[in-house]
């Protein structure tokens, strides 16, 4: 009797918690902390989930696919309502995605896609890398307004998809404008120090006064290049126009200081659109499109970069 009463009492006391918990529980398998951007993505995902009253189970895979697969299996075993995953590699997901499908758990891919049949996941929320490059190219086309411009390009890590796509997009955007010409293009490995080293060699090989603009595949390389330009006695942002991609806080700071001209945002908020799509799917059965493209927003000196810098600084970039 006593035992039964205790059980009953505890059931009653646990009830409110159970009601809250029956709200959505979502598992998020993050790649790891490979870059500042990814740390910001994790922060924003947690914020977005909290704002919607969603319980987020977070798993850090430390850059290993096997960790992500076991995280997904544990999410399935716990019976979560949905799974968000930023896949570390493109291949090898079919089996675990089928397991999720068998358990009727929708999976949303964040920031990267996978080589698996489309019906195995609900949707993918990513940025269009080619589009980012073309936004950068279009900005330069508008900025130069027909004036001749010799461009140097700092590429990302050779062979990586952001490097290939951002290069393609930029080249597409400037291809119809004969006044714009890429005279030097080298990899800066997406890092500040290589960006600086390679820019130094560009400045010597071409002569600083013969370079009109710099296009860097990410902001970190641009920030390194700014230092090289300063050390060569030139004014970055004025003597050499600088456009890059990512919109990390330091790029906003550089624009606010007049040392950089434009950056295109790779938003860390992939979770917002993903959670909206999941909400619509779970509550009203609306199928989202297979690909949700995030906005590639252009930031220039016209924006209040100091304020954006202060706001973004806290995101863990």
């Amino acid at each position, binding site marked *: 009797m006593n035992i039964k009463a205790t059980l009953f009492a505890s059931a009653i006391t646990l009830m409110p918690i159970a009601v809250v918990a029956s709200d959505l529980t979502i598992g998020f398998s993050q790649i790891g*902390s*490979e*870059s*500042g951007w990814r*740390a910001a993505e994790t922060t924003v995902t947690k914020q977005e989930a909290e704002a919607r009253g969603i319980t987020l189970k977070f798993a850090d895979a430390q850059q290993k696919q096997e960790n992500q697969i076991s995280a997904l299996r544990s999410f399935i075993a716990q019976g979560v309502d949905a799974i968000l995953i930023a896949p570390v590699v493109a291949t090898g997901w079919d089996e675990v995605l089928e397991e999720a499908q068998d358990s009727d758990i929708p999976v949303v891919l964040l920031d990267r896609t996978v080589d698996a049949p489309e019906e195995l996941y609900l949707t993918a929320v990513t940025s269009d890398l080619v589009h980012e490059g073309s936004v950068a190219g279009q900005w330069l086309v508008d900025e130069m307004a027909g004036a001749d411009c010799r461009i140097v390009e700092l*590429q990302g890590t*050779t*062979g990586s998809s952001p490097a290939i796509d951002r290069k393609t997009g930029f080249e597409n955007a400037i291809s119809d404008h004969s006044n714009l010409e890429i005279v*030097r*293009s*080298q*990899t800066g*490995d997406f*890092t*500040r*120090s290589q960006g*600086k*080293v*390679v820019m*130094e*060699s560009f400045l*010597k*090989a071409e002569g600083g006064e013969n370079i009109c603009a710099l296009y860097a595949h990410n902001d*970190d390389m641009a*920030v*390194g290049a700014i*230092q090289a330009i300063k*050390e*060569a*006695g030139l004014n970055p942002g004025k003597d050499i126009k600088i456009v890059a991609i990512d919109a990390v806080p*330091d790029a906003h700071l550089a624009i606010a200081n007049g040392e950089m001209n434009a950056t295109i945002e790779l938003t860390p908020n992939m979770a917002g659109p993903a959670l909206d799509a999941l909400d619509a799917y779970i509550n009203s059965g609306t199928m989202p499109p297979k690909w949700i493209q995030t906005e590639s927003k252009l930031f220039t000196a016209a924006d209040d970069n100091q304020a954006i810098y202060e706001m973004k600084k806290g995101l*863990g*970039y």
Partner: protein
Amino acid sequence: MISYNFFKRIMPQMIILGVVLFLNLLVFPDFFVIEFQNGRLFGNVIDVLNRGAPTALLCIGMTLVIATKGIDLSVGAVMAIAGATAASLVVDGHYWLTAVIGALTVGAICGLWNGFLVAILRIQPIVATLVLMVAGRGVAQLITEGTILTFLDEGLIHLGAGTVFGIPTPVLIWIFLGGLAAFFVRRTALGMLIESIGINEASSRLAGINSRILLICVYVVSGICAAVAGVIVAADIQGADANNAGLWLELDAILAVVIGGNSLLGGRFSIVASLLGAIIIQSVNSLILLSGMPPEFNLVIKALLILAILVIQSPRVGHLIYIMRASSPPIKSDPLTPAKESNR
């Protein structure tokens, strides 16, 4: 001090450096032009010396470690830790010199750890230093909390990006430390003691050399050199990048030691030759950047050039050259022989 033997020792490295610099001149005719601009010397040669600084600093310690038959794979990670330490200290408002001393202390502690594993626990150096190579970058990320920790402290920045009398500070630092190390190992018995450990540790110990202390010291020196390199790299970009600072640089440092003609099996070593090796590697990097080739070719070109250098230095090719010279009339045995004949 500078003897005929010394020149004979570094002659192969000097010739290779000359050839690589000549290739640079071919792809970029203004290669040797140095201007005084914006308060600093400005030119490609200066860039080579400046950008070669991290590898040069690492290879000072690496040469000593390799001379003891060891290897230090952790130097790249120690660079990241030291850079992160210096950056976080100045960000917390400490004086830049305090931050540098803090970073060097951390480097020395890392070296002490490696030395303890190698000299006291007798773990093989490649395994012992692998521990810190893998874990060290994580430690650095903990210090920077996963972000690029930026700073604006003029004193610290000066170490990486500043100049003294127009010469970039990193160049002066590596030349000074390299000279200091070379002076100490060659003007005292220290160098010989290190070599004897590398050749045969057991008999050196029997001969009365305190090999444990010496081994630990060598790893500590390597840690400190790595810390200096880490501070310079962080100061150069005004930020500590725990993910990328010194990444794979341990391999460049080992390569520099090998190009310097030092044996990975320990024993005789030359710090000056290793430093030349570091500058050769940087000249190759400069050649790739100036050539304007698409970046897809970078690593292939580098590999081919390094391969060529190593083949020329290999014992078999050296032996072939020796035989070819021996089969021709002797060059030096008879100083009265006219040069023309000796070439036939």
